[in-house]
């Protein structure tokens, strides 16, 4: 039990240190701005950014926008996970398909897909659907690639254990191969979520529709620097929430 207490202590310590370093960084920026070493017209005062939170909540429906962005990102993320794992499994299963398109998928990951937004607008309209679809497509590649890698990388001995127990093909996949690949698949899901989230917010900004991205766009156009930075902080919060959720999910699926 001493071990778990020790773990708890280091955990708390790490969190306190993490929070403290952010506070210190903000304090340093505040001092640099107040002493005139940084220009207040380029960088708002951290205290002003904090101060604008209230205004954003009251006047700009911050909570509603936050939830909208969150919902869009969640929808894109779920699509990415479900479709990505399925496509990855299909690529693994059919070697010809894999040989034919794996390189394309990898190349796809590098494409600045967000620039194709007019096409999406034509198809889905200036709507949340456009944002979700683009977020989904922009994020899909890592999950596919990591799913293929994870399934292909399962130790042959583990598969042999299943075969020796006379598992049929389906059971071998669901009871052995897939669970063995889960950690690798989650590496892909985490990467994919980053891509999806960036694209969701980026597109909101670009087409001036939806949640936090649109808010950032509007505030930036009004030269409301503290407000802009405050809205960006909320984007960061969305991503933090996502990562904690994914981590929880992974721990639930695979406890160690």
């Amino acid at each position, binding site marked *: 039990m001493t071990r778990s207490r020790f773990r708890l202590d280091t955990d708390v310590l790490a969190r306190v240190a993490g929070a403290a370093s952010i506070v210190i960084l903000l304090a340093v920026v505040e001092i640099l701005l107040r002493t005139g070493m940084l220009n207040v017209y380029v960088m708002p005062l951290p205290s002003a950014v904090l101060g604008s939170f209230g205004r954003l909540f009251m006047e700009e429906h911050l909570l509603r926008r936050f939830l909208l962005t969150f919902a869009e990102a969640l929808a894109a993320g779920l699509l990415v996970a479900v479709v990505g794992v399925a496509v990855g499994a299909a690529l693994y299963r059919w070697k010809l398909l894999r040989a034919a398109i794996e390189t394309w998928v990898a190349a796809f990951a590098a494409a600045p897909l967000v620039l194709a937004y007019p096409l999406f607008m034509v198809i889905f309209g200036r709507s949340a659907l456009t944002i979700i679809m683009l977020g989904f497509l922009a994020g899909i590649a890592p999950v596919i690639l990591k799913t293929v890698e994870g399934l292909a990388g399962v130790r042959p001995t583990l598969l042999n*254990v299943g075969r020796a127990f006379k598992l049929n093909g389906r059971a071998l996949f669901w009871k052995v191969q897939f669970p063995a690949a889960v950690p690798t698949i989650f590496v892909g899901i985490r990467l994919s979520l980053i891509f999806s989230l960036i694209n969701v917010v980026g597109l909101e900004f670009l087409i001036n529709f939806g949640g936090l991205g649109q808010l950032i766009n509007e505030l930036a156009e009004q030269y409301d620097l503290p407000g802009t930075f405050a809205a960006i902080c909320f984007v960061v919060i969305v991503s933090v929430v996502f990562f904690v959720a994914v981590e929880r999910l992974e721990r639930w699926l695979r406890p160690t």
Partner: protein
Amino acid sequence: MKSGAVAKAALAAEPSGSPTSALAIQNLSMRFETSEGPVTAVDDMSFDVPVGSFVSLIGPSGCGKSTVFNIVGGLLTGHAGSVRVGAETVAGPHRAIGMVFQEESTFPWRTVIDNVAFPLEISGIGRDERHEQARHFINMVGLHGFERRYPSELSGGMRQRVAIARTLAFQPSILLMDEPFAALDEQTRLLLGDKILQIQQDLKQTTMLITHNITEAVQLSDRIVVMTYRPGKVKRIIDVDLPRPRTSEVITSTAFGAYVAEVWNDLREEASRGMADAESASQMRPSRRS
């Protein structure tokens, strides 16, 4: 002592007369195509594993033991000759055979109890029932109290015991083990050997153990099949006539020493051939490992 009585009772219940073979290996050969041409890993091997007996297959590293293991377990095909379980010829994994692998084989995403219950889960047994059965096998390998741990929280020897318990839970009539103790220190190996002996005597479990450890082979076996190095052939079959039930104490007896010497005599030649082979290979290709 109690387990010994159980084993004797089971022995008496066995039909007397000529012992039937649980496993019959006949003229088994296996060739691999490699980038350096074909390699004969197993060459014309024949031996029997009688019902209820413990047979060890011993030979130097690389002599083809795991190849035999995989063929008998039905995981490797393309061989010549035949492997029969009772009256059936093995073609693919057989329900009667349970395998314990040389490499780490526990499922890291399952707790000890869910690892052991795995074969029961596959055959559709309900959760409570399979956990109860799994607990029985966990106790048998001495892991009581570790049911909720994950393999990553156990030592190598404990993980190997989980793998053994999992295979026992499959309730195979023939237990096949490929160097299950290879990665363990000598003391643990002896104690685990005791466990295996006890289990084998309790369950009257027909067992084929693959090993390169002479003491282990003599300590556990009724019969030892000594293999030659490259190609793997049967060099000699030694019937071990030490009293049963045995424990690891048997290794202090003189008869034990005599058997060890006998096996070592046969193996020395093969082992040194293996070493010479490895050395010349490393001199010829200093940068490559084969």
